[in-house]
């Protein structure tokens, strides 16, 4: 008898659900009764759950790669003619498969925690919370959106994944990064809950999860940048961020997570902001679930939204449960959590961190409001409305500028209280950087407010990084009797977190410049050009050479060949086209000429048939846009650098206060 993949996959999903449920309950009982044997069995079930989930994943991959259309997910989203890489990534090209992937990543993180996390009073509870989250995800996979339904009369072929997704390799990367980010941030949430349950709201839960939080944040950052790049390369309007609801809901947890990775440092150093950190970690996790609900339920209209279905309500219920239970728990434990320390001075490291936290929360609130307001209006008045990009730009741009402002001064301020002399010296330098960069920008014709301000703030931040480095290196160089290069290398090696944060902040500056110029000085035009003729655009001559058609088993491309020349010299040949995958609608596929100073972006806006004599092109010139992707890369590198040392350099210092009650350090 043939081995049927559908029941096999279903069985694995059910088993994973069962193991998660067992582990969650056994872990709780084991933890509250201090029963080591039960705790061990819960840990084993986490590992077993990961193995079973992996089996489900393998079954899905085998079904996709062997075109087994008796598996429902394969029948609705895959296609024989797709190349192998598309079949592999088809697993997360639609709803059911992406939840399976999410659940699998969750089980992988849980198993990793179960094996590697050091034994302490928090661990059993944290593992149990992770497994409760798994219960939800595997519950969805097994009962609500089972990708392994048996199709009794399998079709001969399927429609293939969404055309916008299979049109670009980035689809292989972006969703995985996003889930890695969300799952990574589940770990600090679980430990925070464990801390509340066990009445240990000190710094323990944060030091335990520091690398997990930073990893999750790094993945989320990379996912958002990759998502922007995907939009840029695929959607054909030459932009990368449209304040679309799906983009917004990925940004919100990132904003609160960014606030979190800054404010946990205040608690580590000063034992302050305890309740605040708990609120942030809960909010971050809740927002990631809320986002999934909003985008997967059809309540918000968006270019990326999957259709309505029973999964949306399930996520809504889960969101409500998570929010009520965790904030309820926080309320019950409020007396243990409350801060007793106070800020010595606003002009201090913790003051600046507090400021940046307020900014990120305000940003989150603005984005949330803009995303949900249309729903509110419709619920109240019945009018259908949308909130356009102008709202988000108007509200968030001033806040982003303030973020850049604090990013420069914050790291230069000492903890507790800044010394006047030093502060003046630093401010003088920073002000100089701001004025010189801003002045140069205005001199060279940057007259729009936000781009000019961004350049000024970039100069200011570069000076700040210079001051930070010189402040750390100059005394070391003066004292050391070693060659300068060695001193610098050993500093970079010893202070990985510090240096990593500098690299990350530098990446943010680069991204800010890319955003400011590509948004502020973009030129967007529609042109019509006959074959054999040319049009002028921003100093370029675009010549429509010919049309062409290209066939692969996967798709048919019909496009035009455009020669791009400047000053009479041919510099590039571009092929904007329409790609058609099977019976799906043809998708315009832009051609991009990447240059450090600006990109030239062509999108084909007309049909190409054998009788066509002209092409209509959307031509976009986008200054500095490439630097967004480069900045994203620098940011990821900085995060990685921070992580590479976090396990060695920090715990020794931080663990001093782990068992102690938080306030002592602060009031001393």
């Amino acid at each position: 008898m043939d081995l049927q993949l559908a029941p096999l996959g279903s069985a694995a999903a059910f088993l994973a659900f069962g193991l998660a449920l067992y582990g969650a309950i056994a872990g709780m009982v084991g933890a509250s009764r201090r029963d080591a044997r039960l705790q061990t069995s819960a840990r084993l079930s986490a590992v077993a759950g990961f193995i079973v989930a992996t089996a489900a994943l393998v079954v899905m991959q085998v079904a996709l790669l062997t075109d087994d259309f008796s598996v429902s997910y394969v029948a609705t989203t895959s296609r024989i003619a797709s190349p192998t890489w598309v079949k592999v990534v088809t697993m997360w090209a639609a709803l059911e498969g992406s939840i399976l992937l999410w659940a699998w990543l969750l089980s992988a993180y849980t198993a990793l925690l179960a094996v590697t996390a050091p034994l302490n009073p928090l661990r059993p509870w944290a593992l149990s919370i992770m497994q409760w989250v798994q219960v939800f995800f595997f519950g969805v996979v097994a009962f609500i959106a089972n990708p392994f339904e048996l199709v009794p009369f399998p079709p001969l072929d399927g429609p293939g994944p969404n055309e916008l997704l299979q049109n670009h390799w980035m689809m292989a990367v972006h969703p995985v990064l996003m889930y890695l980010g969300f799952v990574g941030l589940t770990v600090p949430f679980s430990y925070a809950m464990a801390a509340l349950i066990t009445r240990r709201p000190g710094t323990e839960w944060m030091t335990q999860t520091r690398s997990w939080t930073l990893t999750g944040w790094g993945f989320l950052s990379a996912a958002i940048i990759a998502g922007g790049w995907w939009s840029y390369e695929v959607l054909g309007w030459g932009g990368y961020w449209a304040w679309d609801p799906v983009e917004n809901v990925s940004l919100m947890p990132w904003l609160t997570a960014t606030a979190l990775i800054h404010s946990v440092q205040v608690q580590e150093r000063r034992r302050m902001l305890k309740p605040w950190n708990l609120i942030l970690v809960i909010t971050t996790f809740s927002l990631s679930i809320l986002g999934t609900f909003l985008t997967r339920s059809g309540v918000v209209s968006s270019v990326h939204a999957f259709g309505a279905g029973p999964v949306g309500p399930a996520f809504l219920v889960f969101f409500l449960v998570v929010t009520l239970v965790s904030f309820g728990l926080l309320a019950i434990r409020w007396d243990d959590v409350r801060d007793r320390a106070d800020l010595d001075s606003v002009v201090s490291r913790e003051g600046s961190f507090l400021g940046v936290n307020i900014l990120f929360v305000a940003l989150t609130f603005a984005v949330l409001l803009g995303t949900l307001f249309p729903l509110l209006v419709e619920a109240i008045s019945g009018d259908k409305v949308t909130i356009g990009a102008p709202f988000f730009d108007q509200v968030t741009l001033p806040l982003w500028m303030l973020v850049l402002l604090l990013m420069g001064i914050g790291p230069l301020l000492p903890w507790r209280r800044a010394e006047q002399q030093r502060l003046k010296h630093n401010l003088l330098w920073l002000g100089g950087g701001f004025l010189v960069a801003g002045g140069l920008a205005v001199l060279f014709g940057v007259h729009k407010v936000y781009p000019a301000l961004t350049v000024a703030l970039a100069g200011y931040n570069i000076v700040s990084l210079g001051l930070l480095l010189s402040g750390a290196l100059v005394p070391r160089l003066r004292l050391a009797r070693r060659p300068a290069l060695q001193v610098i290398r050993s500093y970079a090696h010893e202070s990985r977190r510090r240096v990593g944060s500098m690299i990350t902040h530098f990446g943010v500056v680069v991204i800010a410049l890319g955003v400011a110029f590509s948004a502020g000085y973009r030129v967007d035009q529609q042109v019509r050009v006959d074959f054999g003729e040319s049009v002028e655009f921003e100093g370029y001559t675009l010549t429509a050479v010919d049309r062409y058609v290209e066939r692969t088993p996967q798709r048919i491309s019909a496009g035009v060949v455009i020669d791009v020349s400047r000053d009479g010299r041919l510099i590039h040949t571009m092929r904007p086209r329409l790609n058609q995958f099977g019976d799906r609608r043809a998708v315009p596929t832009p051609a991009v000429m990447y240059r450090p100073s600006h990109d030239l972006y062509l999108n084909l806006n007309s049909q190409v048939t054998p009788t066509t004599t002209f092409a209509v092109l959307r031509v976009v010139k986008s200054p500095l846009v490439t630097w967004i992707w480069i900045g994203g890369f620098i940011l990821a590198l900085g995060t990685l650098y921070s992580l590479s040392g976090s396990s060695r350099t920090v715990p020794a210092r931080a663990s001093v206060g782990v068992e102690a009650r938080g306030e002592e350090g602060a009031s001393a």
Partner: protein
Amino acid sequence: MKNKKALYAVLGVAVLGVAGFLISQALSSSLVYFILPSEYARDSASFDDRRVRLGGLVEAGSVEFNEEQLHLTFHITDGIAGYPVQYDGAPPDLFMENGGVVIEGRFHDGVFVGDNLLVKHSEDYHPPADGEPIDIDELKESLR
């Protein structure tokens, strides 16, 4: 100590107040209503010179496209009211007569000047047979 707390509280309230004011200003100025031609006909004054998203069907026989100038004109209708639409640009892929469209722009003297044209062809919407009236709610829901 007590003064400091009070200072924080006052500052916090002030910041929140300013932020709330800015946000509500921005919200009311960038709220874009989604309407059908008949809704505009009923209450023209409140939508004039305001950015809206206008949804409807492309009236058969009304489409004119100037290939040289890349200028598109057509009539948009929901079966009750109809308006001429002007749009600079080529008709998008799948743009067709009797097909659903949503166009963003403003009304000027009874003519809709749009700058962003989207084709909506929803599988949920079933166009009425000849002579049968259009179900407005169904149309609107299918276009959003």
